[in-house]
């Protein structure tokens, strides 16, 4: 029980504990709910503070997992599941992104949620545990548990507190995700049994299985690899979502309450790309090479398609939702460039998208609370009544477009260079060339939207007297905007911690002569 091996468990389960506290605290009715709101926000802030040591104490030189905690969970009837958590350079920043976004999302919904507040907060906190769990789980079974359990709170959040078509959107969200993830479950079972037969050691342990594959102790024939790759990939690509599996996303985004959209965009979509980087590439490298061109075709198509569809949306929220399809296409392209730089770019783009799109949804929520509409045509000239708001909006827009010195640029340029220089991806240069046009598309739809909402004269008299940001809204937005700038100016702080893990993901999986390969460090 050292600090090192308890901190991650604490970060994961403090929100769950908070959920129990919120459920039991006091007997306040809907009218007087400040107590539980503050309690819930307090819990998420504590979680965030607890997660900060992860970044500070993280050993940037190590490619392995850190802050590992391990205990037996189920061991019966040929089923061996461990509670095994830990983070590496890949999951570190995603955990921090989650713990950062949660207090912001809760603060943002402070006044927007007016009914069933206690239930809302409880679900949000359970959701946080689920999301952190997905990024920390090092046991496939545990990973799957978190992956699925997290669906339920999100489903209820969209369904109870969502917009008009919430029922349709929530069911679509669950069904899409379920179909994908159940196929992944089959692949998990298959991998478990295969590893057991090959090494005599039945385990769901992700690092161990990855090592066995890299060391040649578990040789999976290519056709089996393709099946397994496909089963994992469908689950993750639906979540990403890659074109053509993206149709659940605009519905879910538009119908979800602001905080739901923020979490969906900032964290939930990242689980798909995270899964690709954690499972598909390191475990099924040969299959990744042979399927990469097909996936990249869809990724590039999605980049352009998302951008074009975003351009014609009259609803700001839908516009941002489609821009997510475009941005996440970049991440997928970066991953399947199968270069260290491309992967780094994908990870960076994931974080940058988490910040900038999260902030965009918050901004949309703020103007929706003021005007109860999200139609672009209803706005215009917001810079006059709301100068502070417009400034932050502008920086966020530029970050989303990928202006240099802001976070979006670093990710996109790394992905493009990584793809361009990729030797494993066939036709890499073409992919890079088409994807590069998206930087233009992005500028077109985002700037055009920004121009119609913020610039010019106030055309609609209702907009003339809108109040500028209040203190709560500033507290919500400013940290995100500051981070966008920090990530754009000093990316090395972030990349140097994730680089070893990403290098290892590529190296581990490239064919290594057996004598050079390291035997799995530990056979528990």
């Amino acid at each position, binding site marked *: 029980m050292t600090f090192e091996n308890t901190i991650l468990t604490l970060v994961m389960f403090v929100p769950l504990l908070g959920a129990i506290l919120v459920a039991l605290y006091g007997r306040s009715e809907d009218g007087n709910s400040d107590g539980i709101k503050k309690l819930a926000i307090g819990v998420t802030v504590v979680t965030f503070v607890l997660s900060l040591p992860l970044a500070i104490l993280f050993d940037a030189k190590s490619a392995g997992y850190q802050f590992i905690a391990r205990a037996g969970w189920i061991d019966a009837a*040929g089923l061996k599941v461990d509670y095994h958590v830990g983070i590496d350079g890949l999951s570190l920043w995603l955990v921090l992104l989650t713990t950062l976004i949660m207090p912001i999302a809760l603060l943002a919904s402070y006044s927007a949620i007016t009914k*069933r507040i206690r239930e809302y907060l409880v679900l949000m906190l359970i959701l946080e545990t689920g999301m952190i769990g997905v990024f920390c789980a090092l046991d496939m079974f545990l990973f*799957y548990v978190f992956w699925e359990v997290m669906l339920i709170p999100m489903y*209820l959040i969209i369904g109870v507190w969502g917009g008009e078509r919430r*029922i349709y959107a929530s069911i679509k969200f669950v069904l899409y995700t379920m179909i994908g993830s159940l*196929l992944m*479950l089959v692949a998990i*079972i298959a991998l478990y049994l295969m590893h057991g037969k090959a090494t005599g050691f039945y385990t769901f342990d992700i690092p161990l299985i990855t090592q066995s594959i890299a060391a040649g102790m578990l040789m999976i024939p290519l056709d089996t690899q393709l099946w397994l790759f496909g089963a994992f990939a469908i689950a993750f690509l639906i979540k990403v979502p890659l074109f053509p599996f993206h149709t659940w996303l605009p519905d879910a985004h538009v119908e979800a309450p602001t905080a739901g959209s923020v979490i969906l965009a900032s964290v939930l979509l990242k689980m798909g790309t995270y899964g690709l980087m954690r499972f598909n590439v390191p475990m099924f490298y040969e299959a990744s090479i042979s399927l990469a061109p097909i996936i990249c075709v869809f990724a590039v198509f999605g980049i352009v398609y998302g951008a074009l569809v975003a351009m014609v949306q009259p609803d700001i929220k839908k516009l941002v939702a489609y821009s997510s399809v475009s941005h996440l296409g970049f991440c997928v392209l970066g991953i399947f460039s199968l270069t260290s730089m491309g992967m780094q770019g994908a990870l960076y783009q994931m974080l940058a998208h988490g910040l900038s799109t999260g902030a965009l949804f918050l901004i949309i929520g703020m103007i929706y609370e003021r005007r109860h509409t999200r139609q672009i045509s209803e706005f215009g000239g917001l810079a006059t009544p709301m100068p502070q708001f417009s400034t932050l909006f502008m920086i966020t827009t530029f970050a989303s477009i990928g202006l240099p010195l802001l976070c979006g640029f670093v990710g996109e340029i790394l992905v493009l260079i990584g793809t361009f220089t990729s030797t494993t991806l066939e036709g890499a240069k073409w992919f890079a060339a088409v994807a590069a046009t998206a930087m233009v598309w992005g500028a077109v739809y985002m700037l055009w939207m920004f121009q119609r909402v913020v610039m010019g004269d106030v055309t609609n008299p209702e907009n003339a007297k809108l109040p500028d940001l209040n203190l709560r809204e500033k507290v919500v937005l400013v940290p995100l905007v500051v981070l966008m700038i920090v990530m754009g100016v000093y990316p090395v702080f972030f990349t140097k911690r994730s680089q070893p893990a990403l290098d290892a993901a590529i190296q581990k999986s490239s064919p290594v002569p057996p004598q050079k390969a390291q035997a799995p460090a530990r056979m528990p």
Partner: protein
Amino acid sequence: MEKYVNYITILPEAIVSLFAFVLMLVDAYTGGRKRKLYAWISLGGLVAAGASIGWIAVLLSTNASMAPVSTYMGMLTTDPFRLAFSTIALVVSALTVLASMAWLDEDSLPAGEFHTLLMFATVGMLLMASAGDLVMIFLGLEILSIATYVLAGYRRRDLRSNEAGLKYYILGSFATAFLLYGMALTYGATRSTSLEGIRLAITSGKVEWTWLLLVGGAMMLVGLCFKISAAPFHVWTPDVYEGAPSVVTGWMSTGPKAAAFAAFLKIYIAVFAVGAPILGLAGATQTALAIIAVTTMVVGNVVAMVQDNIKRMLAYSSIAHAGYALVGVIANDWHSVAFYLLCYGVMNIGAFAVVAAIGRRYDRETMLDDYRGLGWESRGLSIAFAVFMFSLAGFPMTAGFMGKFLVFKSAWEKGLSMLVIFAVLNSAISVYYYLRPIVLMYFSAAPDSDRRRSVLGAAAVAALAISVAGVFYLGMMPDAVLKFFALSAK
């Protein structure tokens, strides 16, 4: 093998029968007025029988030879299989006793007879779990079925309940006839009614009339598929499950179904799965069962989607679940099937207990629309119901997930990959209709008219609490139960 009568091995059945007789007498002498007492007597009997199962388990695990103990000329077999399925029968019946108390009072139905019938049905289930002979299987099945026919029609003044009882009786007798005829033909072919004898006859190639065995086997298959409500022999299920009182439906869909699966597994292991070169019996059965399993899952899940009555929806869901369990049967892994059925028992009895509470007197409110906005009115009931729905849908951390996971794992291990993929896709479809009640309870506004709050009673609350706890216990900490089921595998 023993020369004396081994009383210990018949103890669970004997205890339950004894309590059932005592219950009848007490009922007669108290004139049916001590309603609570009857329930406690039957609970006491079930708990005592459970204790005897525990004792037998201790004896078995300390027995050096660990061989299955065969008693009464091979009529009863005491092995981990028996212990597992007896446990399921007792758990399911005990939960039903708890859930039934409030309902029997609400409908003002006689309590003594109900509990007596339930106890005798339990004896039937226990016998089916311990049978080592086709004759015993049939005997157990009949004891169980006759009690079940009466229970299904237990609301004498309710037409739907009458219809359910009658329908189940007529169709059930028909299916039983198939089973019995099949057993007779099998006996003719193998010259033995003992499961062990049949297995030996097949493996040593002593079957003279192989086609007789095939026909007999096929007829037994029909009878058994009827009892587990596998498609295309499932047609009775929705009508009977809808008409029978909700608590009885909950019990029928779990207890008798588990017992039927026990019989199915016994016959499957003894007759069908034997790898003897008899006209490819094993392969043919496997193919037939695979087709039946897939049909069952598809019919159950697809038709459940369009139901407006919650009981019919759960009836089709029950059909689908029989399909998942069949996958485990085909994989010839009774451990996972038993675990699956225990999980299904706990969650489905819980779900029907909620349906009974919400349906109230004579199950008047069992349409899905009656659940509108209920989530914010009857909070405890709704949360419990949501837990059962998520579990039935197979979300992790719940019993439903763990059960499915183990079944699918052992099927994949046996190379039944296509079957597993079918099953998995089916359970993805099933999420749709399991979410419908949740959508209505939580996402829809309540109707304007005032609803009377459901009256549960302490016993039903206890049943629900145990079911919810069981759902999470089996879903998160299945170790103890799995180890108990795998007593011999140590």
